[in-house]
Structure formats: structure tokens, C-alpha cells
């Protein structure tokens, strides 16, 4: 049925830090030149259209630029403002809360469903795989509109159905406690299908013989999961976690559509602040400074994850 070549194998990703020494050894300058040839097109694009604008934004972050007209050098004023504005403290707290809500939920949902989908006993696997992936093709903004309609307190179908069984959902997006979980849920809904596909690929590559061996040793399903699946999936897991976290720290689209940062600023994230100060208040210098603070924070959090997974890797090997 499948016309794809049997050799085309999808492999689990390597450790985040990379494997230590590549076999084949170093051959000095010639390798460097070859590498450069391979890297050149991507590096050209990334340097011109990503690195250079980032440097330009860094420069802007030390000015009072509005984006046009004259800008004056203001030293670290914008950075001082970032660390002294109480609203920003709230935005940082909200962003972290969102990240904590989104990242584990999306990753665990994807992992659990991938495990179920990987079970040969499950019928209609092709249908389930396709159906669960489809939300990923919907943009976050459209997803936000659909969900807003679904949970509308007056005419929302979900509210109506839940009301029918005695569950009052209320006005979720105006509830200071529920608004953030709601916007996080929309992002989980949109993104878990993509993570699921990556996990499926990783799972497919775990040799069945390992499970058989574990069974022979008398390991139950949970033991097989913790002793076989999890260690062999840890590189995939680390990769997905890091990227899910980077995306969560930049939460914007569905929040802009669904709550605009409300109620009372309870869903106001850092990137919402960056957008508002840059594009609404025309304080591009401040927006750039805030972006760099976010960059540094993300970098630190990522390094923490890398270290954590790096250690796990050693433990299990």
C-alpha cells in the first residue's frame, strides 16, 4: 500500500547538546570550508534578515525612538524602566503562569495521545492521527475566535450544553481566575497535534524487542513506560519542551483576540506589552529593551532545561 521506500526512516532527535565527538575525526581547515559552503545560504539569510535587525533593535533599545523621526540616546533608561514598572512585574508573572499552564499540558497531552495512538490494538489509528493533527492547521487567531464563540456566556454552545448538565461555566474570559487557563487551553488545542506527531516519530523508533525483554522481566505497563519509553524518548521530549516553552514565553495571538490582556490585565503577557508599547504607544526603544530582557530570560530558562536533560541523559546511559 505504501509506495514510500522502506529505507526512509524517521529518527528520534539527538541529545540537545549534540553528541560529543563525531566519528570521522577532524581534518582541520578543509572541513571548515566544507561546513561553510553548507551553511552559507542559511547564514546569509539569517545574518541579513534576523541578526542584523536584532542588532538594530538592540541599538534602538538604548534610544527613545518611536520608530520614525529623530531618536535620542538615553543609555539604560529603558532597561531601568523595564525593571521598575510595576505593570511589567505583573506581565512577567502572567507570562510565567501562562508558560506553566501551557507547556506541561500541551506536552503531556501530546505524549499520552501518542502512546495511545502507538498501540497496535487501537482501531482507526489513521483516522485518529489525522483528526488530532488538524487543529494545527488552524491559525491561533481563528482558533481564538472559534473558542470565544463556543464559550460565550450568552450564546456559547459549550456553556449551553454544560448548563444542561448543571455545570455553570459563567463568563470565562471575564473571570480573573479563569481567563488565563482559557487562553492557554486554546494554544494547547492548536499545538498539541504537532508535538504529537514528533512524539509518534520518536516512539516508532524504539525497538519492540526492548518492550519484549521488559515483559519477560515482569515489568508492567507503567514500569515499561518509565524504564523503556521515557529514557529512549528523553531527547525528543527535551526538544519539544524547549520549543513549547519558547513559544509560550512569546504568547500573544489568541490573547490579543480573546481578552486583549484583560480582565484587569490578568492575561497581559510580556509580548502583549511589547506590542502595545511599540505599536500603540510608539515607544519602540522601550519595546526593544523589553524584548531583549525577554530574550535573556528565555535563554537562561532554556539553558536550565538543557542542563537538566543533559544530566538525565548521563544518568540513563
Amino acid at each position: 500500500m505504501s509506495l514510500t521506500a522502506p529505507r526512509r526512516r524517521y529518527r528520534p532527535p539527538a541529545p540537545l547538546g549534540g553528541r560529543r565527538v563525531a566519528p570521522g575525526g577532524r581534518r582541520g581547515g578543509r572541513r571548515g570550508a566544507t561546513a561553510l559552503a553548507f551553511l552559507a545560504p542559511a547564514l546569509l539569510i539569517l545574518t541579513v534578515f534576523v541578526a542584523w535587525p536584532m542588532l538594530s533593535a538592540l541599538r534602538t533599545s538604548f534610544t527613545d525612538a518611536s520608530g520614525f523621526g529623530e531618536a535620542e540616546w538615553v543609555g539604560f533608561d529603558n532597561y531601568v524602566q523595564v525593571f521598575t514598572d510595576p505593570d511589567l512585574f505583573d506581565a512577567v508573572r502572567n507570562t510565567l503562569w501562562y508558560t506553566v499552564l501551557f507547556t506541561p499540558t500541551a506536552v503531556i497531552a501530546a505524549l499520552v495521545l501518542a502512546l495511545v495512538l502507538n498501540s497496535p490494538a487501537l482501531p482507526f489509528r489513521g483516522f485518529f492521527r489525522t483528526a488530532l493533527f488538524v487543529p494545527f492547521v488552524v491559525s491561533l487567531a481563528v482558533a481564538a475566535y472559534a473558542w470565544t464563540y463556543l464559550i460565550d456566556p450568552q450564546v456559547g454552545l459549550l456553556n449551553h450544553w454544560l448548563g444542561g448538565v448543571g455545570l455553570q461555566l459563567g463568563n470565562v474570559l471575564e473571570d480573573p481566575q479563569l481567563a488565563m487557563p482559557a487562553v492557554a487551553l486554546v494554544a494547547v488545542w492548536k499545538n498539541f497535534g504537532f508535538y504529537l506527531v514528533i512524539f509518534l516519530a520518536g516512539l516508532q523508533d524504539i525497538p519492540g524487542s526492548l518492550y519484549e525483554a521488559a515483559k519477560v522481566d515482569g515489568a508492567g505497563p507503567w514500569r515499561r513506560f518509565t524504564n523503556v519509553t521515557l529514557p529512549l524518548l528523553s531527547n525528543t521530549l527535551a526538544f519539544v519542551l524547549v520549543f513549547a516553552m519558547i513559544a509560550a514565553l512569546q504568547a500573544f495571538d489568541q490573547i490579543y483576540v480573546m481578552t486583549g490582556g484583560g480582565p484587569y490585565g490578568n492575561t497581559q503577557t510580556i509580548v502583549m506589552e511589547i506590542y502595545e508599547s511599540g505599536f500603540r504607544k510608539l515607544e519602540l526603544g522601550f519595546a526593544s529593551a523589553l524584548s531583549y530582557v525577554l530574550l535573556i530570560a528565555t535563554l537562561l530558562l532554556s539553558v536550565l532545561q538543557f542542563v537538566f536533560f543533559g544530566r538525565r541523559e548521563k544518568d540513563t546511559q
Partner: protein
Amino acid sequence: MTRNRLTLGLALALAIGLTACGGDDDSSGDSAGGPVELTFWHGYTEADGDVLEQLVDDFNASQDEVVISTEINPWDVIDDTLLPALSAGNGPDIVAMPAERLPVYADRGAFVELDDFYDDPDSNTAQLNPGAVEMVTVEGTRYGVPTGFVPLAMFYNKALFAAAGITEPPATWDDWVETARALTVDQNGDGTPEQYGAAIPDHATVANGVWPSLFYGGGGDIVEGGTDVVIDSPENRATLEFWYQAIAVDKISPTGVDGIAGDGLFSSGKAAMYLGGPWMASISEENGIDYGIAPVPAGPQAQAASAIGVSMAVTEQAGDDAVEAAEQFFSYFLDQENAVTWSLGSGWPPLRTDVAADAVAENPVVAALTEQAEFGRPLLPGVVNSVDVLTAVDELTQRAMAGEDIGTLLSEAQAEIESAVG
């Protein structure tokens, strides 16, 4: 070998793509000789857009020195597109935007000062509604001309009124609340009415105007003269207490509603009265609601309504002759005949005070709104950081309607707004 061909194809496509597509002709109209070419960004996309295009075409045909071409940038994305375009120096020469957005651009030096234009007796600006002009004025300097200025109005559902035996829309706040109570129906007695007498959003209201309108009615204000913060006043306190009683206690309106939800409540017949913009007329028609239009009922101190404004300005990157050309278009746009055409076409009242309601009588909505024009007050005129001010007002009203202490909320709002405009 297919793969070789693919690689070659990619390389070719890249080469062609990057060179051939790249050579876009630069069409700024500063070249000597020939007419001055202007680009004009606006967000009029409904019937109003067609009328505006027609006015621009007529202007282009009326003389041979200036040619204006328009590009549509909807109101809710104009900030996203304008900033990058201005930063790269290839923005429009003329841009129209929601009026409360103009001051921040003007303050950052994006727009040309138009005081000399206003001083010119041929500019057709002398008869402009002063409230509309206030919305293009920042620290005493005028940076644009209005294209729209309309007070919020009360839309009411005639069928629901008739069913309750009410014939007249309310004229005062007390009337309003009493009428609304009569129209609020809780059939199953669960404490949540199925039909509300009114929909009064407590945040993100239409054009941010509902609460400013109520504050004016109670004799209060938010910011005076662009920098003087006056939100923490006994008048505003009384206003918030009055509406807390009506909304949260008497439940004439659901709480936690924003402007879009409010539109939905009125247009689905679940709320009998609603403060809205002129477009509520067409939304009501689309939804089969038999509606009437009345002024915002008078408060204890004043009858006033916050106005929705749209303004257009000339950007700094327009050359001298482009500025002159833009001014030529402005005075054409504002002459008496075109003012009537624009009013009828856009569905908004005339911008000139010397156009009487009967001149626009063929459109009953415009005529009704024109009669209310005197109640219109500009929203936050001259306030550069309107973003933070409006956020603070939203938080104040939403928290107040949720039952938090009004005195504390007002002093917090005062502090927030002071730091925003200071």
C-alpha cells in the same frame, strides 16, 4: 536525475525571484512636471468606502495638479502597518485613523502641523464642529482634519418596548433605569434575566465611549486640557455608585460585557436599550430588529455623549508640494456640498455645523444623529497616551461593577492616569 533538476530549479527560482521581483518602481510624486501624486490610507470599507473613493475620484477629475490614490488599511490594523511604513519612509502622504490615535503620532512628529491651513479662509474649516477639531488638536496645534464625528446614541428595541407598553425612550437617567427595570424579564426566577432592559458594557465599550458619556452626564470628566487628570471626583463617584446600583443590584444589564458582546445582546433582541455608534442601525436591520434612535439620556448634571471620531492627517514624509496638494484635497472634502454627500454616504452626521438636519433628511439615521450632534463631546482630546488612560478607565469601571470599593478604585485610576499623561 530529478534531484539535480530540482536543485537547479531552486537556484534559478531564487535568482529570478530575488532580482526580477526586486525591481519595484519607486512612485513618489516629487518629480518635477506632471501632477503631484499622493497616497491616502484609510479604513472605510463599507458603503462609506465607496463614497470616499467617489469623492477622491471627483477631486482628481476636478483639477489636473493633484492625483490621489487610496489604499485600504482597516482601522484595527492601521497601527500595525503605519509604524513600519513611516519608519522606512515609504508611508502614505495622507492617513485617516481613529481620532484618539492621532495625538500620539502627532506628538512623535509623524504629522505635519496644519495651523496655517486652518487660518486660510478658503480652507472650509471655519464651520467645522469644534468638538471634532478638538480631537485633532495637540497642545494647541492642529495636526489633521476630521472625517467623522458622531456622539454615541441610544438604540432601543421598539418591539420590546411595545410588548411592555412603553411608548417613549427614556430622557433622563432615572427614566432609563426605571424603563430598563420594566423591560428586564426573569421568567424562570433563577436570578439571571433572560431579557435585559439594557446592555451596558463595563469595559472595552463601543469606541470606549460609554463610561465617558456617563461621567459627563454626572458632571465629571477624565482628563481636562490634555494633561489635567480629574477622574477622582465626587461626581464620578456618584455616577459609578448610581450605575452599580442599576447594573449589579437591579440587574438591568449583565456585567462583564464588552462592546462586541453588547452589540450581540442588542442585535439578538436580548437587551432592549444600548448605547452604540451609527452602524448599530445597519446591524439592527440585518438582524431584523425594529429599532429607534434617541439621545443618550440626560444625567443629573448634563446631557452629553462621548463622540466617536475619525481624523486624517498629512505625514511628515510628504514633501512641500504634497502637503499643499493634501490641503487642497482637504478643503475640497470639507466644502458644503461634499460635506453633505459624505455625511449621507457614510451615515455619519455632517462635520460642518452649518449643514442643517433637513439637508440630510433623506437618511433618517443621519438626520436623527445630526439632531444630537450638540451633545457630542470629544474623547480624551489632546491626550497623547490614550492607550493607558483607556486601560485604566476600563479597569475602574469593570472592577466597580464587580462590586469593589469605588473610592479606592477612583484614587488608583487617578494615579494610573496621572502617570500615563504626566
